[in-house]
């Protein structure tokens, strides 16, 4: 993982985190929007401009890769590098949560 990836994605935005989390399965952008809405009980509604920008940025940076196209929708999946970044982020959030619990 190079310095650019670390700088941009560690820590990452909530949008970026949910995208990587969802793309452990093959999915298109709108599929991610729907899934995130469902798993957060409607708390988080991702917007199309943000989704489009994030997906193309992550594809360029090699965190996700294009799988195929279905009805004008591009399907993506996480890459090995994306998994490493997601793992780092999960560890960071776990540490944050533990610390918060200890201090509380």
């Amino acid at each position, binding site marked *: 993982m190079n310095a650019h990836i670390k700088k941009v994605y560690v820590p990452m935005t909530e949008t970026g985190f949910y995208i990587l989390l969802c793309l452990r399965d093959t999915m298109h952008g*709108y599929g991610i929007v729907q899934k995130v809405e469902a798993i957060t009980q409607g708390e988080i*509604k991702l917007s*199309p401009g943000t989704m489009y920008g994030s997906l193309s940025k992550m594809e360029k940076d090699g965190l996700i890769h294009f799988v195929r196209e279905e009805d*004008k929708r591009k399907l993506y999946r996480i890459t090995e590098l994306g998994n490493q970044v997601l793992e780092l982020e999960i560890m960071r959030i776990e540490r944050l949560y533990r610390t918060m619990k200890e201090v509380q």
Partner: protein
Amino acid sequence: MKTTKTEFRFFTILEWTQEQEYLRKQHNNGWRFINMKFPGLYHFEKCEPEDVTYQLDYNPEGIAHKAEYIQMFLDCGWEYMQDYAGYSYFRKPASKMDGTEEIFCDDDSRLDMMKRVFKHRIIPLILIFCCVIIPQMFSQYHHLNRLSGIIFTGIFTVMGIFYLILFRTFAIQFWRYRKSLK
């Protein structure tokens, strides 16, 4: 009674927030935006007054892959209207939203859009200013005793001043926008 109207409004390329607000107000007053074919000339048609959110995106990559780009917005309930000067126009009625909705849901992506506008629109202007206008301003300096020299230098000096005013406006708008995000 008139069912269509055309209004002239000028927004700089960094004033998309104001432009969105303008289109929303028109729709609230019963004028639905149809299109813009020339810079600043907005065409409207009469409609039932409704609260409709208008949003502009600037994404050259999206325009290059138009079908999938627009599909993403359609899926999320945004109607696509047109592209103009690199900007894509979208709208969604408030009645189809829960709460308020925008095409960007975090400040990172809002700032990314600003950066795209800078890269594709402002940097070329700066290059023109530095590589064309400034050298031309001084190229005829030694011919100032001739009328053609005076006219030539005059034209480019006026253009140079115009560019400087433009850059100043951009700088202020950029600074304001950044401040509004954080």
